[in-house]
């Protein structure tokens, strides 16, 4: 189990400060939500964690290992998987092949052996396909294995992306708005899946989310960003009562009390 530590991270795009010295720590085995209004810097934060952006200042550590200077595929190989807000799956590929892509870094890179179709390559493929089917089972995608990803309904595609991330056998899972665009029932299902990922697979989850209800329901801990700055870090219960959060995030009106600001 490993701890993710974000230490004074800043990201600027020209004059715009997307993240301003943000720090928080993700404890192993928890579901940690990062929330905030639009433009608060949530996605930027996730992009820094997965190595897509390099911060202008500050560091990110996984246990004692610094991630900030690593390229994204190195970070992925350390066991950090992520999903995207706008689903990034290969539409023309089957669900199974999309999932196999998650196994990429677990398979040995043997170009020549692959080219000449050596039996050992076929054996390795088979082994990973077996595991991929298990993961598909876990997320209820078994029936769709042979279908091209583009033909799946939206909710299933979101789930496929999550399954692909799980196929990487990660220690840490970064989810970018996993329930965006879903209806109530789908949201509930997804929340359930995320909890099972944590409890049954023991994967730590960092969740960027908009949906307040879902966050309070499943997160163990919440970090709230506003205009790139951290304005809160603590338990969901404490967040609901925090005046700064209420002011910034809930537009001045906590949904529970409907009290004017």
């Amino acid at each position, binding site marked *: 189990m490993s701890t993710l530590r974000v230490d004074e991270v800043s990201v600027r795009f020209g004059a715009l400060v997307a993240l301003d010295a943000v720090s928080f720590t993700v404890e192993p085995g928890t579901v940690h939500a990062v929330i905030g209004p639009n433009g608060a810097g949530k996605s930027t934060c996730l992009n820094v964690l*997965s*190595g*897509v952006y390099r911060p202008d200042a500050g560091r990110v550590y996984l246990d004692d290992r610094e991630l900030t200077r690593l*390229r*994204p*595929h190195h*970070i*992925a*190989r350390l066991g950090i*998987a*992520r999903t*995207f807000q706008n689903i*990034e*799956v*290969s*539409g*023309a*590929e089957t669900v199974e*092949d999309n999932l*196999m*892509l*998650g196994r*990429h*870094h677990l*398979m040995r*890179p043997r*170009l020549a052996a*692959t*080219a*000449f*179709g050596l039996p050992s*390559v076929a054996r390795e*493929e088979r082994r990973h396909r077996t595991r991929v089917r298990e993961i598909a089972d876990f997320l209820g995608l078994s029936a769709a294995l042979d279908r091209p990803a583009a033909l799946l309904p939206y909710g299933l595609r979101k789930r496929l992306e999550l399954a*692909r991330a799980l196929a*990487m056998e990660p220690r840490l899972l970064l989810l970018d708005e996993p329930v965006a665009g879903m209806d109530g029932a789908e949201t509930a299902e997804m929340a359930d899946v995320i909890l099972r990922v944590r409890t049954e697979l023991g994967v730590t989850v960092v969740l960027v989310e908009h949906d307040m209800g879902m966050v309070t329901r499943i997160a163990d801990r919440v970090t709230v960003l506003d205009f790139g700055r951290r304005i809160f870090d603590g338990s969901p219960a404490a967040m609901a009562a925090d005046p700064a959060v209420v002011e910034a995030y809930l537009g001045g009106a906590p949904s529970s009390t409907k009290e004017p600001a």
Partner: protein
Amino acid sequence: MSDRLNRLMPKAGWVAAVIVLLALPLYVDGFWLSAGLVAMAAAVGAVGLTLLVGAAGQLSFAHAFFLAVGAYGYACFSGEPGAATLGLGLPPALGAALAIAVTGALGLAFSPVASRLRGIYLGVASLSLVFVGQHLLHNLTGVTGGFNGRDTPMFTLAGFDVTGSEPPVTVAGVPFGATERLWYLGLVALAGAGVIARNLLRGRTGRALRMVRDSEVAAAVLGVDVRRSKATAFVVSSMFAGAAGVLSALALDRVVPDYFGLLLSVEFLAMIVIGGLGSVGGAVTGAAFVTLLPIVLARYSGVLPLVADAGSGGVDAAVLARFCYGAAVVLVILIQPDGLAGLGRRLRARLGPAVPSLQEST
């Protein structure tokens, strides 16, 4: 019963195709074999290019350059030592293998540029390889023979002339000369190229390449080293081009710089687009279409209606061939984005149920 028949049909088709290809030298004359050889050489190159452009999504105009490296490389490694142009006199099979390796190495040398540049910038940058290549081919006369090029060394394998007539072989009354023998070498090369490309596309490498094409960011967070993948695609594609170059050199008897110009690169792009980007079978079909169309039209222009006599100022065979494949490129992208490969898949799907797709789709 019909179920079994359906399953057997494609297999029988393949077997029949292989037998026809094997028996062809017994029936058709040198022209057709020679045209077929050129098409097979092109097909090997096209398969390589479809890995790069179709699967990895990297537009490249440099293919003609890599073909030239393969062709000239073979001529240098296996050429007569002591002649006017550099020749190391290595055994032809070794020379060919080294030529392919050198092409791959040059692809690797260019890959820092390739992996830094995206999409269209790469396409345009790769144009420069063709022009710089032409410049070198014309100026390094000691190696390339300059404008007039140099002869292709004969291909012999364990004392057997593949591009000659020693020892004499006659099958069913047909003497097997250079063209007939080379035909089989072409078949072996093409089959090898096809199988290797399919293995690569179906496995870990191919999946990674297609993800890089669809989204570099997504590929990277999945643990794919994007730069390395792009470089791999470039190197592998160059090696296919190198093999195609060796085969072209053998088919043409002589390598001349004029052949490896921009037009050739454009023709290769046309092949893989017409065939269907990213499909091995499509690349082969496209190569056959683009190379055979002008040759066949030129040969039979006298018989075809609508085709004016060459030189009469009307639309002659060569112009017609260019119209045809220019229009084919436009039409394929406009109405049949999967190219001939997609068309084939659709036809098969309509003819028989549950026929497994033979192509790696994009």
